[in-house]
């Protein structure tokens, strides 16, 4: 059966460092992958979309990679700030299968 795993439930880093979040999947070949941010009590907010034929996508301090051979996407936040603290979700393909999310805390 299809499975989506996001690394550790929680990730704590120091302000200014780079946060790296992982999304691994099995038994699935999505044409694209999306990353969303979710704050407590709010709905997810779209951040980035990357297609299967794209290796890397950037937007300001955010970078996403997509390795269809490894069946993995990495999501990086450079020069992290306390305001980046939130849960980050990956979602695969048109049927929008979400991972459970990784709760990121950036400490000042």
């Amino acid at each position, binding site marked *: 059966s299809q499975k989506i795993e996001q690394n550790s439930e929680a990730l704590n880093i120091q302000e200014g460092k780079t946060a790296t979040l992982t999304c691994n999947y099995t038994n699935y070949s999505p044409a694209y992958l999306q990353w969303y941010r979710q704050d407590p009590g709010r709905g*997810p907010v*779209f951040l980035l*979309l990357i297609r299967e034929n794209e290796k890397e996508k950037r937007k300001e301090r955010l970078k996403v990679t997509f390795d269809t051979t490894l069946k993995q996407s990495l999501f990086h936040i450079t020069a992290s700030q306390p305001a980046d603290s939130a849960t980050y979700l990956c979602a695969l393909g048109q049927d*929008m299968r979400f991972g*459970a999310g990784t709760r990121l805390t950036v400490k000042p």
Partner: protein
Amino acid sequence: EAGVAQSPRYKIIEKRQSVAFWCNPISGHATLYWYQQILGQGPKLLIQFQNNGVVDDSQLPKDRFSAERLKGVDSTLKIQPAKLEDSAVYLCASSLGVGTLAKNIQYFGAGTRLSVL
């Protein structure tokens, strides 16, 4: 631009009761989605509408859940009768529609938090 509106924000009911949630998508968005998000998990797609037609309802528990999209705009999701395991946040999202990938980007409402006692 107004976002996706959902109501109510919170609802507490007893098991076996009925409940309904309402969603008003972003104006001009042809596609509407309902998700269930259980605490600690990612959202799970329940049903997808394209205008007023159902595109995917494969994960909707049809024995107790129903949804409709009135005139291709607003939508309601109903649970009848509710079970304890239905306690979750119900999220509504909308997107421009099909075609380019940009049209598939979803915009979510704040959700309705349902507690079934």
